[in-house]
């Protein structure tokens, strides 16, 4: 199949037909990649919701060079041959990204100091780049009580940005779907409806796909800030998943097990709950070596080779 030519922020690349603008940009990497708060390449049908990845299409295609009338979600818009896309080079796209960041924050509790996600939170990263310096809202934020969904996962609905990733994990990765979105609009919430336990082999992946601190690991809760830990790649023989994980160590102590995330914060592979929650002894694992950490903010501050 002939490749399609697309220009993103003046960088020209050729990609296969059926590639989205987002994935075309990811093939190049760097600043031309729009931020993704809801898209997750491993989850079918994800994306299109948060609108942080909106870009301007200055030229639709070689055949039809008209610009697209509205900004488009780069994670859900397919590349056409001869398309010209503006991400950071479009003031309009940057303005709307700032607005979207603000929208995501107006109901966010900003409780980073007590949030386990701090340091590896995509909303923190997004606000750092696109946030306003001052808040323009004086309204009360919506509040929900934190609830346990199952004994291993804590839901802080206040922090949720409704990206639907965890819903898709439940739908696509676990064998029995037990949670979803209840209600509508600003009053919608992630829920298990009757707070029925989320209990199946792969549910823990919801924690890893959650871009914010809405879903956190009860077995790790308040044990450490992420930047005080050292991540190691490790593996074990597992019958349910690949057994390839990251161990988060503080000194000699193994505090947390997660999947391995790539530079876009996406899991390379989903791991099972056995590995994640039930093997907290270093001796359970074969350690491969220190995990290379990239942009992910403060974690990389202390140590190790950078990706």
């Amino acid at each position, binding site marked *: 199949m002939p490749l399609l030519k697309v220009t993103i922020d003046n960088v020209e690349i050729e990609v296969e037909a059926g590639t989205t603008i987002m994935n075309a940009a990811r093939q190049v990497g760097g600043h031309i990649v729009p931020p993704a708060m809801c898209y997750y390449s491993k989850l079918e049908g994800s994306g299109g*919701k948060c609108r942080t990845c909106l870009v301007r299409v200055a030229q639709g295609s070689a055949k039809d060079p008209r610009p697209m009338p509205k*900004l488009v979600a780069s994670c859900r818009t397919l590349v056409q041959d001869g398309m010209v896309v503006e991400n950071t080079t479009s003031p309009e796209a940057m303005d709307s990204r700032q607005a979207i960041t603000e929208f995501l924050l107006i109901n966010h509790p900003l409780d980073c100091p007590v949030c386990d996600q701090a340091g590896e939170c995509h909303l923190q990263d997004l606000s750092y780049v696109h946030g306003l310096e001052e808040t323009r809202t004086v309204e009360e934020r919506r509040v929900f009580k934190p609830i346990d969904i199952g004994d291993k996962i804590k839901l802080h609905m206040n922090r949720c940005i409704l990206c639907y990733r965890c819903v898709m994990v439940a739908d696509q990765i676990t064998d029995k779907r037990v949670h979803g979105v209840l209600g509508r609009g600003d009053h919608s919430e992630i829920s298990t409806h009757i707070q029925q336990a989320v209990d199946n082999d792969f549910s823990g992946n919801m924690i890893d796909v959650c871009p914010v601190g809405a879903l956190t690991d009860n077995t790790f809760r308040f044990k450490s800030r992420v930047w005080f830990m050292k991540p190691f790649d490790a593996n074990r023989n597992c019958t349910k998943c690949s057994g390839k994980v990251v161990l988060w160590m503080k000194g000699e102590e193994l505090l947390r097990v997660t999947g391995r995330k790539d530079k876009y914060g996406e899991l390379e592979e989903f791991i099972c709950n056995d590995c994640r929650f039930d093997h907290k002894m270093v001796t359970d694992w074969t350690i491969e070596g220190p995990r290379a950490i990239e942009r992910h903010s403060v974690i990389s501050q202390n140590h190790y080779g950078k990706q």
Partner: protein
Amino acid sequence: MATQILLKNIDVPGLTDIHVYKGLGGYSALEKALKNFTPDQVTEEVKKSGLRGRGGAGFPTGMKWGFIDKQSEKPRYLVCNYDESEPGTFKDRYIGELNPHQLIEGMIIGSYALGAKSAYIYIRGELFYVIKIIEKAIQEAYKNGLLGNNILGSDYSLDLYCHPGAGAYICGEETALLESLEGKRGNPRIKPPFPAIVGLYDCPTVVNNVETIAALPWIITNGSAAYSAIGIGNSKGTKLISACGHINKPGIYEIELGLPVEEFIYSDEYCGGIINGNKLKAVVAGGSSVPILPAELILKTAAGEPRLMSYESLAEGGFKTGTMMGSGGFIVMDHTTCIVKNLLTFARFYRHESCGQCSPCREGTSWMEKILMRIEGGQGTMKDIDLLVNIAKHVEGNTICPLGDAAAWPVASAILHFREEFEEHVKLQKCPF
């Protein structure tokens, strides 16, 4: 008296009964379509009639049918959008309640044109009394050989179902409607693909409004030329307008497109003027989603031309000085109306009805409502007014479905045309009304 296409026999007692409907010539259009026309010829007639979708966007119906993927091996569907939930719009319910067979006849004709074997009427759940009427009418149509196998002895067969929704405004958005019809949460889908290619159960689908479909029998009986002879410019035929607010005669009227707005408001045939002889202040001409216009601009365009009830004339002047035909919900406000309070009511509606999928709409609608609540409650600041404009600007055009726009336009237009009233609320620290 304007030509009556949709409401012609509406006052005939017992019209919901199939025999009464047939006695008035009902189902003869279907017979004509099945005997004299191929499906493509029906589509052609609808194209030539100039009929446009009455659900809000005014998209040409025949052209929409033309997009359907007829090469696909998959089944095709016609779905009737009977979710009618826009504040100010209450026209569709009238058709189903009083003349259900006209809708059913239209559904069969449309399904025949599209080659659909199954068709659905998706109706909002609160209309439970209408659902009963429609279901009874569907049963009658089956008994009379008008639905089911080999309709009227032809080789065309169709099953028609009436499916109640759970009463969410968002399920009127066509892709949310399809999700809901499939038994899922009614979240709008990300487009493209459009329903004509990937619709109900991933099959090619046309979604049309009740009023659009109810016009089909007349077009087949009387011909496309007769239909397109009514109206003006690209606004052909008749349109139901549900008129409400501070008028002497609120109700549902069938107008010929092109009627001057002034005549519609003031003549005794229609709204009969403003109550108590009050002064007209503003009109929301097409359901709560369209921009509000002050009296001077709804009666005359910025160029001083009389404003007409047509897609083009209502839209003249764009966002600055025009509005939209929308779904025909005509809300009239006299000088006693507080624009801010009215806007707050709309904003509350959109906040409540947003599906919450995309961040600008979910967060923007609730933020706008909260600010309006403060302004109306006497706690607003001048900065809040500009903030509202700014929020509306960032919601509009940035969302998955047009509900975001529908929530933003009323805010932006109310402040554009009635800014002093917002400022007065702030200065007085209370509502002046």
